[in-house]
């Protein structure tokens, strides 16, 4: 079951990476986000999975689809990058992947026997209002700045 979801996630990610049409890439991104939410469920992270659904799929993906639809002639942009060709990019990514795979399989991870799956919302709420209260408040400030900044950047300038 886990491997089915993992394979689905990676396949959708490959669709994002290799699809020639940006609209197909956006919908592959949708599948990838669903798959990652499913992986969070397998990891007993119910609140993170819910946040993934609400914020990523409900917010970020809709935003990306809006941008895709708003910029017409979007499919005209050639896929490949001129400054970094496909082969150097592939070589770099392959080298990175090999190094990281070696690190994954050579390290002896100190795995603790996992706890029973309990709801995580209580502990996360206590964490946000306890030890993580300063980042939490900073996050709200960052979101306010982002709201104002996005409006300022994206509105049409009044040219006199």
């Amino acid at each position, binding site marked *: 079951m*886990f*491997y089915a979801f993992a394979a689905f*996630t990676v396949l959708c*990610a490959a669709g994002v*990476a290799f699809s020639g049409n940006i609209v197909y*890439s956006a919908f592959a*991104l949708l599948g*990838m986000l669903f798959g*990652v939410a499913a*992986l*969070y469920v*397998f*990891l*007993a*992270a119910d*609140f*993170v999975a819910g946040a993934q659904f609400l*914020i*990523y799929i409900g*917010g*970020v993906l809709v935003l*990306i689809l809006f*941008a895709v639809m*708003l*910029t017409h*002639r979007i499919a005209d*942009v050639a*896929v*490949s*990058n*001129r*400054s*970094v060709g496909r082969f150097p*990019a*592939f070589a770099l*990514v*392959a080298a*990175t*992947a090999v190094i*990281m*795979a070696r690190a*994954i*399989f050579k390290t002896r*991870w100190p*795995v*603790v*026997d*996992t*706890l029973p799956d309990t709801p*995580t919302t209580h502990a*996360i709420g206590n964490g*946000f209002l306890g030890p993580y209260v300063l980042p939490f408040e900073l996050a709200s400030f*960052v979101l306010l700045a*982002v*709201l104002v*900044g*996005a*409006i300022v*950047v*994206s509105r049409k300038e009044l040219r006199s």
Partner: protein
Amino acid sequence: MPGVPLQHFLVVGLALFALGLYTVLTRRNAIGILMGIELLLNAANVNYVAFARYSGTPTDGQIFAIFVIMLAAAEAAVGLAIVLGIYQNFESIDVDATHALRH
């Protein structure tokens, strides 16, 4: 999830990271690059939650994952606003076309 070792989650994260890096490196479409960044952030998040799950204290890693999700939403909002601004100015979202700060 008993039965699935930690390494398999890390491999999923690695695959997502590699594909995201490839997307960022090869796309000329600015929105495509933003999608690649989303892939990278999701890869990091999978690793956070997996490590948290297998470390015995799952709360801290999940809180970090939530912060990453929040910042990804902020980054997408600002990034797409910039992309739309570029599109209005240059009539294109090819990142090679944006060679000047103003038009």
